[in-house]
């Protein structure tokens, strides 16, 4: 009992790492997640039994289809593919993980983007037999657009190529070329067999030529994104707390989630877009008051002055670089809907806590995923296309570039009629200045 108590206190302050899978259909993403969960002993007996039963029912005989641990929808099981992201959780003594297992099928790219948008690490799988194909490139492109800080390229199904070092090295070499065009940083390569477990949790004896870490070890040791706390402070106001009670008669708290840097009581702040100045009087978190708070804490800020602030405004530190306040925004967009982007059309925009409308002013170019070149003559942005566009918003946005800040640098486009989320936008100031150059 005493050892268990020790474990639980250790568990109370663990680090969280979010990672997602990527790669073409059938490259083995779901199988890999199943294997990772299984070999790290994160599967419960009743879950395993249910997956065994389902494997048998789906005609797999006695072999357990580990992909069924994430492919939980009826349609997914019938078709043997992943349709939407499955979130799975596991922990080792070192870290807690949130996994997003995403679909490889091109039709469901929007769901892959959904899963990847919050990831600290992307594991891109490549079938050793097929090498790098268009969908592997598309997902790499998206990982690069989203600026996922760490990329692991897992060359899978090594069992089907006799664990050949040459096959692995050829793929690695080709991918390095792509990675340098896409400015992907921190790319690590690893030969695996998701089906059999080689180099997933346990090192394989079939790849003596591979001297690197197992996948789990990498996940346990890769740096978690934490540098947001060193960015210029950003506080998009989400909601105003006014108790209207006798005890808290004059209380007025601006609730939100810190989206860059940190704030302290006494900090001089500027409210945008109005440019009003004030000072932080208090920072409340639930029933407690704090001296200081940082990204990504949800708090409410009280100011010394009674100023006019509403949802959508952003509080920043007066001493730090300010975001751009403008209705003209240039962005890279990943299109997610059947209906193509309508140049000249209007869309609803959600950016941080702001909502406004925008008109699409210009489509500069779209990207040919296969050659990674820009297409200038065909500007129809269809589902799964990536393009560079300019918009003009009704209310000014208070933005940074996506490279500077993932929250104040991202937005979504919403169809005015169907209300569907149709585009994911990453704001760029000047393409040449960005880490991402095309």
């Amino acid at each position, binding site marked *: 009992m005493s050892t268990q108590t020790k474990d*639980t206190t250790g568990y109370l*302050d663990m680090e969280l790492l979010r990672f997602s899978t990527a790669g073409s259909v059938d490259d083995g993403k779901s199988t890999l997640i199943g294997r990772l969960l299984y070999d790290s002993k994160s599967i419960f007996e009743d*879950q395993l039994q249910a997956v065994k039963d389902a494997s048998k029912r789906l005609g797999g005989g006695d072999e357990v289809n580990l992909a069924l641990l994430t492919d939980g929808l009826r349609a997914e099981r019938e078709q043997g593919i992943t349709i*939407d992201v499955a979130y799975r959780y596991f922990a080792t003594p070192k870290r807690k993980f949130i996994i997003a297992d995403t679909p490889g099928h091109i039709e469901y790219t929007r769901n892959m983007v959904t899963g990847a*948008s919050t990831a600290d690490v992307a594991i891109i799988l490549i079938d050793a037999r097929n090498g790098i194909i268009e969908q592997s490139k598309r997902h790499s492109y998206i990982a690069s657009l989203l600026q996922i800080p760490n990329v692991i390229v897992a060359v899978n199904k090594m069992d089907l190529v006799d664990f050949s070092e040459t096959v692995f090295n050829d793929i690695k070499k080709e991918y390095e070329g792509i990675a340098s065009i896409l400015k992907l940083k921190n790319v690590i390569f690893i030969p695996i067999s998701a089906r059999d477990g080689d180099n997933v949790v346990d090192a394989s004896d079939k790849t003596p030529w591979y001297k690197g870490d197992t996948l789990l070890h990498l996940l346990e040791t890769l740096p978690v994104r934490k540098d947001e706390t060193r960015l210029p402070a950003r506080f998009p106001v989400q909601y105003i*707390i*006014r108790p209207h009670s006798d005890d*808290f008669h004059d209380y007025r708290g601006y609730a939100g989630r810190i989206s860059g840097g940190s704030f302290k009581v006494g900090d001089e702040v500027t409210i945008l877009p109005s440019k009003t100045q004030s000072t932080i009087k208090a920072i409340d978190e639930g029933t407690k008051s704090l001296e200081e708070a940082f990204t990504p804490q949800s708090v409410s800020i009280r100011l010394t002055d009674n100023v006019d602030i509403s949802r959508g405004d952003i509080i920043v530190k007066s001493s730090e670089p300010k975001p751009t306040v403008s209705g003209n925004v240039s962005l890279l967009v990943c299109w997610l809907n059947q209906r193509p982007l309508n140049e000249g059309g209007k869309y609803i925009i959600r950016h941080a806590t702001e909502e406004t409308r925008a008109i699409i002013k210009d489509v500069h170019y779209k990207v040919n995923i296969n050659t990674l070149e820009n297409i200038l003559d065909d500007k129809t942005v269809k589902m799964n296309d990536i393009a560079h566009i300019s918009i003009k918003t009704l209310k000014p946005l208070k933005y940074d570039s996506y490279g500077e800040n993932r929250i104040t640098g991202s937005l*979504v486009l919403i169809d005015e009629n169907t209300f569907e989320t149709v585009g994911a936008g990453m704001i760029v100031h000047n393409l040449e200045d960005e880490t991402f150059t095309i």
Partner: protein
Amino acid sequence: MSNYKLTHLKELESESIFILREVAAQFEKPALLFSGGKDSIVMAYLAYKAFYPAAIPFPFVHIDTGHNFEETITYRDELVERLGAQLIVGSVEESIATGRVVEEKGFNASRNKLQTVTLLDTLEKYKFDAALGGARRDEEKARAKERFFSHRDEFGQWDPKNQRPELWNIFNGKKNLGEHFRVFPISNLTEMDIWQYILQENIPLPSLYYTHEREVFERDGIIYAALDAIPRRESEKVEVKRVRCRTIGDITCTGLTLSSADSLEDIIGEIASSRITERGGRSDDKRSEAAMEDRKKAGYF
């Protein structure tokens, strides 16, 4: 220089509070679905923190099957009082009485499925446009697929094959008239996170979660409370055992665990070494392979 590092519990708390506030900001008439189980208790507590010192800006809705443990109802009423929340009860018994649903018969009868109709009727009656649920993605394979902001059509149905993309922390709660959203602020908490959080925040729980002596009987390997809500076969003998609930639902679908855990630390130790999931003891999931997906499509919690 300060140590700017959040523990996973703080990070998850912050995410949940962000979503609760987003619901209050984006919807005209949200409600918090309160079942009396630990997950909805944690959600209620997070809502309290999210809006403190103001009152929680939406009512709690409890869909009461009429087969609840007495402790659940007592706890519910005390909690609502303590948090200063407003409570609306949707009654499955009323739905039965007015002929909206027909009660299942037999030994395995459960009102679990009937709840969906009462829930949708209650949402409709009060014109709620968002219902906050305490579902977690680690609970079940269909839940593992659900968005934080989960769109429902005018029939209250979920279309798992065509969910809206949900990027970064931008949530799109826009909808047409008659449609609504289910929102799951604690999606990313696991069972262990929930218990750790309850321990960290010192949240009082219904006594059912701790070990107690109770008259029980066994059916298909699951231990149930020997109460009137579940008709027993003659062969099903009643015994007194030391048990506790790992999840709490309606009496008819809550399996009890043999346990002597009488503190949160004990419970956490027990869960850390458990080899079956908490829903392993829920008979409502055992009806078929896609039981949860089917119920969710129809508008279940």
